[in-house]
């Protein structure tokens, strides 16, 4: 499996288990066509897989069949290397974390009691449960002393959602299922919760399956994205990079919406691209020597650094000519981005500063180089090329292979990943 496109740093060890849906169908009684039609889906251990698609296409049904909240009509579900299709549903669900919109907390129990539900059922002793509750509250960025004894109604929506995640993780299940977990919070909180989920995932490395309406959320969170259409038919199962660069067909293109290029920019960090170098001088030097350096390097600007190598000014030839010695007075509105910023953020900064470029800083704001619009364009082109070149990945098909993912369709040079693994 090519992981080059999935460039998320992984610090912890994978504690997740893989999930396989094998030819799973759900036919609700009294409906003419199945809500989920013969889905075969391989969810790799320790990855985040996003299920997206239009309303009513069967995302929730697919998700709930994994923990058998909805019993499949046909097919098998394999967790790790264990067939869990016929084990007790309650027992299975104790091993799979489940988070719904707004957390689904029990209003009559305190935060601590909510989180302790599964450990209690598993018969942990009191001390161990109390320690685990505090540990989890820390993990989801809530101060245990402050929040442990509160009731859900005494929390904000975002905090309730965090407690929901903590509760789902309580007994350290290998798998976490989330159904539109951030659907009920405002956009700013949603973004914060998404960032938090990513950093939690870095630590815990679970296998996480998330249903979402929001394609941008899928791109941001997913290692892999499944695009469904009516009847949970898989239109494309791919990395976010590749779905953006090579949508399988017009349906996916439509679903991505406009600005696929811009969305790709949110996938790459400034630190991942090659920066242009710049002429640097230090505060206190004579302007004349700065001009000389600049001419030797055939540049039109110099970056003035302070004594701790932090950029303070960015001067053009004309500005330099008017100066005597260089000071370390910080320039107003200096376009600076950190190396952790996305290319999208960098582009924003450039556009605001109207410089067509921005200064990049690393740890402790030390100057690293310059990022330009050209760098960003090159990065998009490179991302497209590498996305197109990477093939292979987990299996995702429906039993009656349908024309939308025909292996010889022009756009699917590398997208017919199902074929790569079909044996």
């Amino acid at each position, binding site marked *: 499996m090519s992981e080059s496109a999935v460039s998320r740093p992984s610090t912890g060890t994978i504690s997740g288990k893989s999930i396989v849906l094998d030819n799973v169908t759900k036919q609700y009684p009294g409906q003419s066509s199945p809500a989920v039609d013969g889905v075969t889906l391989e969810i790799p251990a320790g990855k985040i897989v996003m299920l997206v698609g239009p309303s009513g296409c069967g995302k929730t049904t697919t998700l709930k069949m994994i923990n058998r909240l909805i019993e499949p009509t046909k097919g098998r579900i394999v967790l790790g290397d264990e067939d869990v299709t016929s084990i007790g549903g309650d027992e299975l669900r104790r091993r799979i974390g489940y988070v*719904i919109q707004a957390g*689904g907390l029990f209003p009559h129990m305190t935060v601590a009691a909510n989180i302790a539900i599964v450990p209690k059922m598993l018969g942990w002793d009191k001390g161990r449960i109390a320690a685990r509750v505090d540990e989890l509250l820390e993990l989801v960025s809530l101060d245990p002393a402050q929040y442990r004894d509160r*009731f859900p109604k005494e929390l904000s929506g975002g905090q309730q959602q965090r407690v929901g995640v903590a509760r789902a993780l309580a007994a350290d299940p290998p798998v976490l299922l989330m159904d539109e977990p951030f659907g009920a919070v405002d956009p700013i909180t949603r973004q914060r919760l998404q960032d938090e989920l990513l950093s939690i995932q870095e630590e815990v490395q679970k296998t996480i399956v998330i249903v979402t309406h929001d394609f941008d959320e899928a791109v941001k969170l997913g290692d892999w994205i499944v695009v469904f259409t009516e009847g949970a038919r898989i239109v494309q199962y791919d990395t976010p990079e590749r779905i953006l660069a090579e949508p399988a067909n017009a349906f996916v293109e439509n679903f991505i919406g406009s600005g696929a290029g811009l969305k790709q920019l949110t996938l790459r960090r400034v630190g991942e691209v090659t920066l242009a170098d710049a002429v640097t001088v230090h505060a206190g030097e004579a302007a004349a020597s700065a001009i000389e350096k600049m001419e030797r390097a055939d540049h039109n600007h110099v970056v003035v650094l302070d004594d701790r190598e932090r950029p303070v000014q960015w001067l053009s030839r004309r500005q330099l000519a008017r100066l005597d010695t260089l000071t370390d007075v910080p320039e107003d509105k200096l376009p600076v981005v950190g190396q952790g910023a996305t290319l999208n953020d960098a582009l924003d900064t450039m556009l605001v500063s109207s410089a067509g470029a921005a200064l990049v800083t690393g740890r402790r704001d030390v100057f690293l180089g310059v990022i330009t619009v050209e760098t960003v364009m090159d990065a998009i082109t490179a991302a497209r090329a590498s996305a197109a070149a990477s093939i292979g990945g987990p299996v995702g098909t429906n039993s009656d292979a349908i024309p939308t993912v025909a292996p010889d369709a022009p756009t699917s040079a590398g997208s017919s990943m199902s074929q790569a693994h079909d044996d």
Partner: protein
Amino acid sequence: MADFLGSRFDQIAFASWQHLSLVVQCLLLATAIAIAVAAVVYRSRPLSSVANTVTAIGLTIPAFALVGLLVAPFGFGVPPALAVVTFFAILPILRNAIVGLTGINQSVVESARGLGMSRSSIFLRVELPLAWPVILGGIRVSAQMVMGIAAIAAYVLGPGLGGFIFSGLSRLGGANSLESVLTGVIGVVVLALLLDLLLVGLGRLTTPRGIRV
């Protein structure tokens, strides 16, 4: 009046105590039965509406008639009184229990299932506590209602304050007849207020802070 009360204080106190005891015991029994019935029917819409219809019809049955009819199977004394009072006590509690249990936010129940809780532990640890304030509301209504109904028990020679009312009414105009009726009626009202106060206190103690309004 004061003479009447003074001379019969022990008798009145004993009857009041018996009255209250009958009502409280019937309420406990009725609560248990109502919750058990609600537990069986609340997940099914048709069964719930059958139960609701039965409670509505049940409330229209004249208590007086029912208690008389029950003499045949139960004989005189405590048993028919207990049966009638419990029957009427069940009705408001059952109604509220069904309302309370079906009114629970389904996402809470779904997340309980998602955590792997069994059906019975969801009922006992999630649904029942959440429906409890509503059920308790039913118990309060029930308590008020059956406090009066329990007075009819005297008709079948059952215990309680009803005896004062019946004996007073049967010789109305005679000595102390009005005092006797008033003693019974006022006793019932005072007991009802007292019990309601107790139930409010019970509500305070048994409703978790998270769902208090």
